[in-house]
């Protein structure tokens, strides 16, 4: 059963797995989270706007993204970005786009829809009286949002935002479908080269499990702290 389990293949490929693979995974997770939260917050403001075209566009965008599988979105962006690049730069042929940019665009716009829903819930959790009070003392819309509502909404939602980031970390493994070398991609390349599927996939599962579980335990602790302060 495990008699011919080859630990050596894991040891040999550790530098490749972590410096090439895991670095890509973590960078993609961090950048896409940052981008997703910024765009998601703007989408949430649009969605809650009383100006109907804004809320319809934002709502439609969120519903569209949430009804599509991530794999399909990855394929869409993978093929679409070269054409958009051609259109923007005015080149004569679809341009070549790197793996990181493709993945970054995909995950940012996909996760923005989920971050939008989280931020919307956060904004709606702030009592209406605060918006009215801010308006009454003469604050503009952006002052109200930027100085009063969003800081509190963000603070309340930090545990949920971090949980979504853990989901995003796991989701980045799907870039496998366009042959990008993230952590799982690196593991699978070694697995296929050396014929060591069992070792590499089990090791990948263990690493993902430890990182995600560790992160979610930390989020739970943070949640307790945030909850006490309020």
């Amino acid at each position, binding site marked *: 059963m495990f008699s011919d389990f080859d630990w050596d293949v894991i040891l040999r490929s550790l530098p490749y797995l972590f410096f090439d693979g895991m670095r890509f995974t973590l960078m993609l997770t961090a950048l896409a989270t940052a981008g997703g939260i910024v765009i998601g917050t703007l989408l949430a403001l649009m969605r809650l706007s009383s100006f109907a075209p804004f809320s319809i566009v934002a709502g439609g965008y969120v519903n569209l993204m949430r009804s599509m599988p991530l794999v399909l979105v990855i394929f869409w962006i993978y093929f679409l970005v070269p054409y958009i690049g051609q259109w923007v730069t005015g080149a004569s042929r679809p341009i070549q786009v790197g793996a990181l940019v493709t993945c970054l665009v995909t995950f940012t716009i996909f996760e923005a829809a989920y971050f939008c829903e989280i931020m919307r819930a956060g904004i709606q959790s702030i009592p209406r009286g605060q918006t009215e009070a801010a308006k009454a003392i003469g604050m503009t819309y952006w002052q109200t949002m930027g100085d009063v509502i969003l800081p509190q909404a963000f603070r309340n939602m930090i545990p949920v935002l971090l949980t979504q980031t853990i989901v995003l970390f796991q989701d980045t493994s799907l870039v496998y479908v366009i042959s990008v070398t993230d952590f799982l991609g690196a593991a699978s390349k070694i697995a296929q080269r050396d014929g060591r599927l069992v070792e590499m996939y089990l090791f990948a599962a263990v690493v*993902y499990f430890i990182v995600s579980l560790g992160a979610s335990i930390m989020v739970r602790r943070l949640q307790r702290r945030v909850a006490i302060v309020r």
Partner: protein
Amino acid sequence: MKYNWNWGIFFEISPDGVHTYLGSLMFGMVWTLATALSAWIIALAVGSVIGVLRTAPNPWLARFANGYVELFRNIPLLVQMFLWYFVLPEVVPSSIGTWLKQLPNASFYTTVFCLGLYTAARVAEQLRAGILSLRSGQRMAGLAMGLTLPQTYRYVLLPMAYRIILPPLTSEFLNIIKNSAVALTIGLMELTAAARSMQEFSFQVFEAFTGATIIYIVINIIVVNGMRILEKRLSVPGYISLGKPAAAH
């Protein structure tokens, strides 16, 4: 943008020589639905047991159930898919391994199993939240009336808990449909894989993906509306109003 649009491609014959490309997308849709529905049965059954165990008085059973949820929630679905498909046949005794590898439609069974157990962890999480949201007096009243603990769950707690968690269960069901697309990595010809192969053979990238996207949106709308009707049918008058958790009392 210079791209040669050709919407007529849907009615051209696909490489299988019999069906049109539209037909091949429809086959993909049928595989997606068959996979999602079969996996959903496993998810509901296993998820209910695990969810109940998490609220059970026996600490060892609760610990086991918590471990199950943590295990399945903290490994990416794609990695789980690979573990079931590539690793499992290698680590079981070789006669079973060979049988697994030679199974017709192996990728379908693997996906159903994998997706079912993965979603079960999420269903269990929702069900636990639903049971815990009930006032503790309900459990006590059930036991005080002389019902056994399983009877209390069966006749008092679970009927309310399932109604409370119907909205999150709806989104889990939508997730299972979307997550079935991950199965294209192990060769299941579901909807996204069908669109991908249509794109590869016809070179009409955006028509293929548009077709798949529209089908996913239509499935989504049907499920959301169907569940809304179900929710209305099952609601207990005066206790749970549509879309809201249990009324305060």
